[in-house]
């Protein structure tokens, strides 16, 4: 048996595949992925602190390239991201970035985010009939939030969406000549992004504000982020904070529409939104799989895992593990405690988790409140991708 998580049936209902893997082969070598699939909660948790599993995934690829190509400068930008570094480089970047993501800094942005959410919902409610909640609300929303947080002029916000798509295309690789052309165009777009963010950084160095980019310029003792590192941080914020948040909002809305009892419960008790979003992230979160490279011999549940291999930590499976969660396939908005790992765990735990929570809470709360007659208009189609749990469209009706 070899499992392919990007097969259409597995993309449509990955949870049935995960259940099978957890019970029959929890550390599964998938020939299709050329990687180990780790699916139980405890094993995924342990893997987050196993030093044999490295996040340093881009630099080795760059080092293997003999000649610099058009892609090198953009890949160089990606290679510096703290999500693809190990300590001590990671520790330094994370510490320098942490101040900008502090709980209190995020908390004061609630009003601003609510205004952005409401303006997108206004646009949606102005339309009628069947509409796609993703293209109208869930997709543009996080790009607008990120552009606003970085202090970019409102007129530039559409470009953030394009760059976000281009970053995803380049970061997740392409494979195959058919997509080489798109890849090349994406790289051109990203060089433009690089220039744009450098200009933004110059501007903020001279004229700091209360935006996140200015906060990222803060010193940690004698240390501070260089201009190139700030540009990489802007790109990372867009890459890590856009599609994931889109999927959080869309998947949460779908789960509520499919569980009318829980939707009514949230309508009757809006204060439930905090635990509700945690449960929605556990139940059908935005990320299915995180990757690690194996850099030392290790063993997981009796399986020998060797350097040079890859492991896929299946977050979406861990979050449905009956060993950890009672009735894991039941959506219970009041679940407490809820130790889900939708944001990962340990030193690489999502630095933007507080921001993502706030965006998702506000978006879901406002959708529930402002669209009392919301209905699913067609069965959603899931993208055949490994990393994300993502729909193409979420077509709904509101009266």
């Amino acid at each position: 048996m070899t499992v392919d998580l990007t097969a259409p049936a597995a993309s449509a209902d990955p949870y049935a595949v995960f259940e099978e893997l957890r019970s029959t082969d929890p550390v599964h070598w998938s020939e299709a992925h050329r990687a180990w699939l780790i699916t139980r909660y405890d094993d995924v948790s342990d893997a987050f602190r196993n030093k044999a599993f490295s996040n340093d995934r881009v630099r080795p690829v760059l080092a293997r390239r003999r000649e610099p190509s058009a892609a090198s400068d953009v890949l160089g930008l990606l290679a510096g991201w703290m999500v693809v570094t190990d300590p001590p480089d990671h520790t330094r970047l994370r510490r320098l970035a942490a101040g900008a993501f502090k709980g209190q800094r995020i908390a004061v942005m609630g009003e601003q985010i609510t205004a952005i959410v409401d303006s997108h919902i206004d646009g949606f409610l102005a339309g009628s009939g069947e509409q796609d909640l993703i293209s109208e609300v869930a997709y543009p929303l996080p790009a607008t939030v990120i552009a606003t947080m970085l202090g970019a002029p409102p007129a530039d916000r559409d470009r953030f969406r394009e760059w976000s798509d281009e970053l995803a295309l380049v970061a997740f690789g392409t494979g195959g000549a058919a997509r080489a052309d798109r890849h090349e165009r994406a790289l051109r777009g990203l060089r433009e992004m690089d220039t744009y963010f450098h200009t933004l950084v110059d501007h903020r160095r001279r004229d700091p504000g209360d935006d996140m980019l200015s906060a990222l310029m803060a010193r940690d003792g004698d240390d501070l982020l260089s201009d190139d590192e700030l540009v990489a941080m802007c790109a990372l914020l867009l890459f890590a904070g856009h599609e994931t948040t889109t999927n959080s909002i869309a998947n949460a809305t779908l789960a509520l529409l499919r569980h009318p009892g829980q939707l009514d419960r949230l309508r009757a008790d809006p204060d439930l939104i905090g635990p509700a979003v945690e449960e929605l992230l556990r139940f059908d979160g935005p990320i299915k799989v995180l990757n690690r490279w194996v850099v030392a011999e290790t063993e997981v549940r009796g399986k020998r895992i060797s350097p040079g291999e890859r492991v896929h930590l299946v977050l979406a499976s861990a979050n449905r593990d009956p060993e950890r969660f009672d009735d894991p396939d039941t959506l219970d908005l009041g679940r407490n405690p809820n130790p889900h790992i939708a944001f990962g765990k340990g030193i690489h735990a999502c630095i933007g988790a507080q921001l993502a929570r706030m965006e998702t809470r506000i978006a879901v709360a406002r959708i529930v409140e402002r669209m009392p007659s919301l209905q699913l208009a067609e069965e959603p189609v899931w993208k055949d991708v490994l990393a994300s749990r993502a729909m193409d469209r979420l077509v709904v009706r509101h009266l």
Partner: protein
Amino acid sequence: MRIAVDSSLCEAHGQCGVVDYELFPLDDDGFSAVGPSREVPDGDEATAELGVASCPARALRVLP
């Protein structure tokens, strides 16, 4: 105000460190290094409560 971690409950989710890495330091493996009694500087009480509430394992608490 003082805060504490119950190390037997901490699972290294790292969510408190996301809220404030100075109030909620983590060790090299991502476990809380808050210890049995850590002083919260004046003015940081709200952040401390946010961080305590962020723990999905309920390992953190505000000391009475």
